[in-house]
């Protein structure tokens, strides 16, 4: 299955912005953003965005898994038998996730206990599988890493924006530091599960709004 990359970001100026690596990367961050572009990996997005620290650790974990996984799959792409593709992806992903999970347990023990099973659930995260199947299996390691990095940064961007507003409105703090004085009441709806859905809906609403506006301007 060949991926059709829409190379519609011609930039003038720097050579970097004209390279194929950059285009693949930018495509993943904005047009094919995992959250609002392709709507993948919603489980973790909704679950970990109540606090910025959780969202940050989770984003880094997903980005690392994505990049390492895409690189490995891309390197061995000619050796993988076509029929056993899925199970090969899964074995490689779960090996990487076990390693990342052990690192998180050691580096951030407090965050690790609040994240619970969601780090392990990166194994079944559609973003990782999607990037393997759609890109890494047909492309060189260099391009695959750019593509995975784009998807990872796009995921990080979405998570951090949602977590910023959820923590600010729900707890009045950012990364655990109080920024809103106690005299102003917080809306705890945003820190509980139903609020996650509303926060995601509002985020998608504003992204679509910006996208529409941007496209209208881009027509000239």
């Amino acid at each position, binding site marked *: 299955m060949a991926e059709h990359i829409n190379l519609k970001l011609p930039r003038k100026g720097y050579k970097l912005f004209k390279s194929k690596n950059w285009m693949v990367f930018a495509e993943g961050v904005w047009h094919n953003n995992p959250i609002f572009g392709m709507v993948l990996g919603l489980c973790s997005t909704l679950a970990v965005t109540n606090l910025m620290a959780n969202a940050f650790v989770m984003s880094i974990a997903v980005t690392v898994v994505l990049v390492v996984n895409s690189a490995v799959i891309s390197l061995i792409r000619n050796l993988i038998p076509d029929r056993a593709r899925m199970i090969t992806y899964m*074995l490689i992903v779960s090996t990487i996730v076990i390693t990342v999970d052990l690192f998180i347990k050691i580096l951030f023990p407090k965050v690790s206990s609040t994240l619970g099973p969601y780090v392990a659930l990166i194994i079944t995260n559609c973003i990782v599988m999607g990037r393997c199947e759609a890109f890494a299996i047909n492309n060189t390691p260099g391009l695959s890493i750019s593509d995975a990095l784009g998807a990872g940064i796009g995921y990080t961007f979405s998570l951090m924006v949602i977590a910023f507003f959820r923590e600010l409105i729900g707890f009045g703090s950012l990364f655990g530091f109080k920024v809103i004085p106690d005299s102003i009441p917080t809306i705890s709806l945003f820190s509980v599960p*139903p609020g996650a859905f509303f926060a995601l809906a509002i985020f998608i609403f504003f992204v679509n709004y910006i996208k529409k506006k941007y496209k209208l301007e881009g027509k000239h």
Partner: protein
Amino acid sequence: MINLLVILFASILTSNIALTYFLGMCPFVTISKNMKVAYGMGLAVTFVMVVTAMTNWLINKFILEALGIEFLQFLVFIVTIAAMVQIIEIFIDRYFPALYHAFGIFLPLITVNCAILGISLFMVLRTYGFFETLFFSVGSGLGWLLAIVSIGALRKKMIFSNPLEHFGVTGITAVLAGLMALAFIGFTGIARL
């Protein structure tokens, strides 16, 4: 016994796996357009969830813990799930062809459904015993079925309304799910995990 019933009702209503833990969100958004399909998917997920949770409990207890290699849990669980899904598919195709046609297409998708793996992971985190795992997986499966069928019904009604266009399909489904999750909070008094 009371403890088992608490686990059952809590996992169906108050700690619903889709609305509280957000597991299995991808099919929740994509498949819930059609209520009949949602129902088939829900049944298939419930069935596979119970079978894989019990298998994983046995493997975890008698192989991984016995050998002291719990760090391989994720790898072993996902392989077990993939294998079990294949076995179930072959078995149903051979003995219940009608059932195979009803949810045959969903079975391969279920391997990558995070709710299935999530149940096995929660079971380990909460150190459930054999019967607790059984009631927990049955309850979670039914809870997921209830959530996806209800959102399918809500989305059917949405055909007649005219939401703000910027929300798109995903946005408006998220709003519906949020309202449903709020309604499920009303069950909090019944049981709690």
